[in-house]
């Protein structure tokens, strides 16, 4: 077994699927990643479909994204350099500082239970997708490629929703969340950070 294959067969997040599994089909993860990114990017179009309003569409989209990301065999995750708590605190601290720096009365939906639930679902689903599925898939190119690639895609899918001016902001946020994934060895840490970051906006 090569060292790279051994890294995929992380005991913390599961081993490589057998060759016969449809998950192991060449390019299957790429197709799923492309579909997920495509759907996230197409959000402005999707929320206008069906005439049911954005709520049900977003809940369906993020639920599906979360389910697919969790069902997909995870790769990587061995050799965490740090325990989750300090990594989590650093990320949360950065986002809290960001909230203080940005200030101002804009950008917070009314903190209804539904809005809080959807924001949290979106955060967890996006992290499961970008920091578990996409990051894991890109690990074939090494940790740096996984970090950079998942961050670029994370920033790119938000452009249609918020405009091109968010690219640097979301790229920086993606790098920080990706580093948390790398340093802690788990996508749960960036997911928790992302949930807190979203709550900092609405609460």
């Amino acid at each position: 077994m090569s060292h790279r294959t051994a890294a995929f067969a992380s005991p913390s997040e599961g081993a490589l699927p057998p060759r016969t599994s449809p998950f192991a089909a060449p390019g299957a993860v790429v197709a799923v990643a492309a579909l997920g990114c495509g759907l996230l990017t197409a959000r402005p179009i999707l929320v206008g479909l069906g005439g049911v309003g954005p709520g049900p569409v977003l809940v369906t989209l993020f639920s599906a994204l979360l389910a697919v990301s969790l069902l997909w065999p995870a790769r990587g995750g061995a050799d965490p350099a740090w325990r989750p708590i300090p990594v989590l605190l650093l990320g949360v601290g950065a986002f809290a500082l960001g909230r203080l720096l940005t200030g101002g009365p804009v950008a917070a939906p009314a903190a209804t239970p539904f809005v809080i639930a959807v924001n949290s679902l979106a955060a967890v689903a996006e992290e499961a997708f970008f920091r578990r599925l996409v990051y894991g898939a890109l690990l074939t190119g090494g940790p740096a490629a996984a970090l950079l690639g998942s961050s670029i895609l994370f920033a790119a899918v938000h452009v249609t929703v918020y405009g091109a001016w968010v690219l640097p902001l979301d790229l920086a946020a993606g790098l920080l969340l990706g580093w948390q994934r790398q340093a802690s060895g788990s996508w749960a840490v960036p997911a928790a950070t992302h949930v807190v970051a979203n709550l900092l906006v609405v609460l």
Partner: protein
Amino acid sequence: MTEVRAAGRRRRRFGVGVGLAGLYGAVVLATGLTAGHPVRPLLDGAGVTTPYRWVKPPWYVGSANVKPTAGHTDITFVNGVSPLIGVNSPDSQVIINLPAGALPAHTGDNVVRASFTPIDPAKVGKVAKPNRADGNAYRVDMTYQPSGAPVTRIVTSGNIVMVVPDEAAKMLYSPDGKQWTELPTQILGDPNTVGSAFNTPGYYLVDTAIPAFANPNAGKGTKRTVGIVLVVVAVVLLLGYVVPTALKRSRAAQAEAAGRRRRTVKRHRR
């Protein structure tokens, strides 16, 4: 020795995290300074909305705006005198405070209904240039109940407070929503909360000197979104297929070259 190296690596990795946190802070600050309006620390979730509730949201607010609704509050007279009271629109973006006795008594009625109706500012008179409307316009109606007769004057001035999305310039008043008159305006606490005297029902609006934040992508709509979707999917495919394939070929070529070198060295040794 190995433990010392491992500890050094761990410290370096955490240092990378601190550096990325700093980079994020710098980008947030730079974005906030250049965007022309406050930004969110992480743009995500159920779409962009603001705490401000728009009748017609601007482009950067997105689809999850909670539209304000019209509403009313009944003010009951006590011993024939209107009480000291504060009434507000359902979205709390307009608040009117009235001192005791502010509303004149009306024969046969003992209640005044204060109604608030948020209006898209594009549907009322235009604000004098170079300023623009800052958030919604509001129509404030006051009627005696049960007769329904309008309250036409206030005996003692109250005050009206409006919360707006951008830094306010002046509060404006119009009896019919066509021509605006500037009111003496006070900034209350922060530049997004302004107050003035309240002397009569009618239309109220706040203006701002801050230019509208133009949508850099305006007019491109669905075609542009589809274009970006295609680009993102192409990037994923590139990252997923092309780059790994190129890397694999490169590694295979390197391994082959190394193998050739080893074979050559072995032959020479023999």
